[in-house]
């Protein structure tokens, strides 16, 4: 656990840069986080990010790709277009959520 500065704000992050405190994130941080991994946010990106934030608040866990598709209603193909190569991780990173744990 360490501190990082995102858009002039100090936040807690893990070794890979994923934010670890749900409350430290706000929408103003998202464009900077997205830019860090080469993504420019559009409305379509925001739809996914807002789903992730809402789902985490009720479930207490970063949703899997499958969950974003089946519960959030965004096709997997679209998620790969929006967040190339590693959509589950990239969405979580921008949404300020812990790295998805789906892999055990």
């Amino acid at each position, binding site marked *: 656990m360490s501190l990082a500065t995102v858009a002039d704000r100090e936040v807690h992050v893990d070794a890979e840069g994923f934010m670890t405190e749900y409350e430290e994130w706000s929408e103003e941080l998202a464009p900077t986080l997205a830019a860090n991994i080469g993504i420019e946010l559009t409305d379509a990106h925001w739809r996914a990010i807002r789903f992730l934030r809402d789902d985490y608040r009720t479930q207490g866990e970063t949703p899997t790709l499958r969950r974003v598709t089946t519960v959030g209603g965004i096709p997997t193909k679209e998620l790969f277009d929006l967040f190339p190569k590693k959509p589950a991780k990239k969405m979580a990173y921008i949404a300020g959520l812990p790295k998805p744990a*789906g892999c055990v």
Partner: protein
Amino acid sequence: MKRLLVLGAGTAGTMVVNKLRPLLSDDEWAITVVDQDDAHQYQPGFLFIPFGPYKPGDIVKPRRDQLRAGVDLVLGEIDLVRPDQNTVDLADGRSLDYDYLVIATGTSPRPDQTPGMMGAEWRQSVFDFYTLDGARALARKLATWEGGRLVVHITEMPIKCPPAPLEFSFLADSFFEKRGIRDRVDITYVTPLDGAFTKPVASGLLAGMLEERQIAIEPDFYIERVDDEAKTIVSYDERVIPFDLLVTVPLNMGADFVARSGMGDELNYVPVDKHTFLSPKWDNVFAIGDASDIPTSKAGSVAHFAVDVFTHNFLQHVSGEEMTHRFDGHANCFVESGAGKAMLIDFNYDVEPLPGKYPIPGLGPLTLLAERRMNHWGKLMFKWIYWHGLLPGRRLPVPTSMSMTGKEVATTTTREMEKVQ
């Protein structure tokens, strides 16, 4: 008379009823377990079937014979659970009432969930080895296969027994070596994970073992479809991998009745508290083993450690006391590495697999996270322990909670930092 109803007489369900029966008075408690058939399969045995002869009697036995006296077995397909009415409906019209329900119906491979997987090439050049039929069909194929591109593939996590596809790859390497055709086989390991395994130290080590055996790895591969005409697998980001022989681990899902009953998540796993297995929604419903959504490996060893915790908690819960035992996510797995050797890994929710000795710190006789002949013998011996020690609910000489004693922690400092990109 109180009624405990357990759905599923597999590894977890059988242990639950066999552990609880002596602890719950026959005069006060009826214990019933439901399953769709009377064939209990020793699933860890499936891994070896593709590579050689096996004794069917070691792998499949009647469920009834694994259950203690005083446990009723009902054979029938589960249609629906009505958790608000404390009733389970079977497909044949029977209904079973309960005071307490334990869902232990596991997880199953679902090749039907990936487009093209069950097409014209299914069981011709596309195989699974997580079912007895699949493993036997693959054995017939491998016995005469002349070589080519072998793709070992995982559809999506979580899968049961997560090291099994790696073990399959190592055993395949040995098998082709022995048949003298290794130079004619090109092996690729295709995974949705970002490396060989889920946990960093083990993942690094296992990646090295793949490399030593000249098995290529294709990470972050999220399959969209099998193209059975072109004989390729295609990912959502449009990577295409050709195969002559595809050995896939299909999507794993919990039972369909869980979804129909409105009790599951998007993969039909039942959400429960990860330390007690109690449903947050229904105070008399538990889910244990692969059927639950707890964030640890779906494996028989997890079910074993989980049932130890559950048994104590269940007795407290039904007496109206607070449940004081907490499951730590403890799992251990033998990882067969080919040529008569195996590794052993031991981990929990918080601690990844580390090197060391097991189960007696410093002595073993098993060695963690290293290839040893002794570990392979341990894995073979485990089949006997499963039928004669584990299922009957006898105490095994291994601790329920994971122990840090005997583990070498220093190696974690070399953990590689991985980038998001």
